[in-house]
């Protein structure tokens, strides 16, 4: 089965990002294909490369990067939500002449159309609320 999800909550506010990560790990283990994770609203902060997790807390950013890099899960970040929260890849850094790119390259900054495409291209779509 093809599954896509949306993540609305920030990694360390509420449990939504962690619940979503565990869900995707289980779905992959059970043999499903996870087509796209769409980070929306505060969920885009999962892409923050400069973040450093405390030693006694799970590194959620690293967990998402691992899924993207080793399992080929597409990590899509809503551009409108990303830019206003300071989440920029190198293209957006250059476009807006900022000093640094803040989004890890495992995440793609995309338009809202990719949310709709994920819904139509997947058998199931699950939203993880903030």
């Amino acid at each position, binding site marked *: 089965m093809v599954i896509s999800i949306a993540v609305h909550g920030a990694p360390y506010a509420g449990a939504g990002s962690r619940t979503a990560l565990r869900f995707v790990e289980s779905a992959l283990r059970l043999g499903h294909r996870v087509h796209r994770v769409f980070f929306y609203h505060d969920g885009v902060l999962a892409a923050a490369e400069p973040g450093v997790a405390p030693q006694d807390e799970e590194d959620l950013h690293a967990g998402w990067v691992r899924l993207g890099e080793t399992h080929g899960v597409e990590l899509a970040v809503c551009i409108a939500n990303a830019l206003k929260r300071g989440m920029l890849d190198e293209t957006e850094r250059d476009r807006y002449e900022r000093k640094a790119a803040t989004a890890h390259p495992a995440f793609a900054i995309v338009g809202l159309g990719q949310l709709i495409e994920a819904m139509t291209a997947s058998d199931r779509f699950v*939203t993880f*609320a903030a």
Partner: protein
Amino acid sequence: MATLHLVNKPAAWEGCHPLLDPKDAVLLIEDGTYLAQQALNGAAFHALEPDVRARGLSRRVHPSIRTASFDDFVRLVESCERVVTWSA
């Protein structure tokens, strides 16, 4: 089964409850698992076990509510045609 409803906080239950179909399933997750301490009606109820345990509710889950692992969560998504997420 028709629809899987995700309830992640107690306040989200009010919106979900009136719209349940008897064939539906409800999965209580995160702070929504506090609702599992009472009998709920209108659908088949499940509570995400790691979230139940994290809140010290393991012995307080009502017998009418099943606990579910993350793998069970995925299986519920498989078996229902669609998933609705309630927020408050």
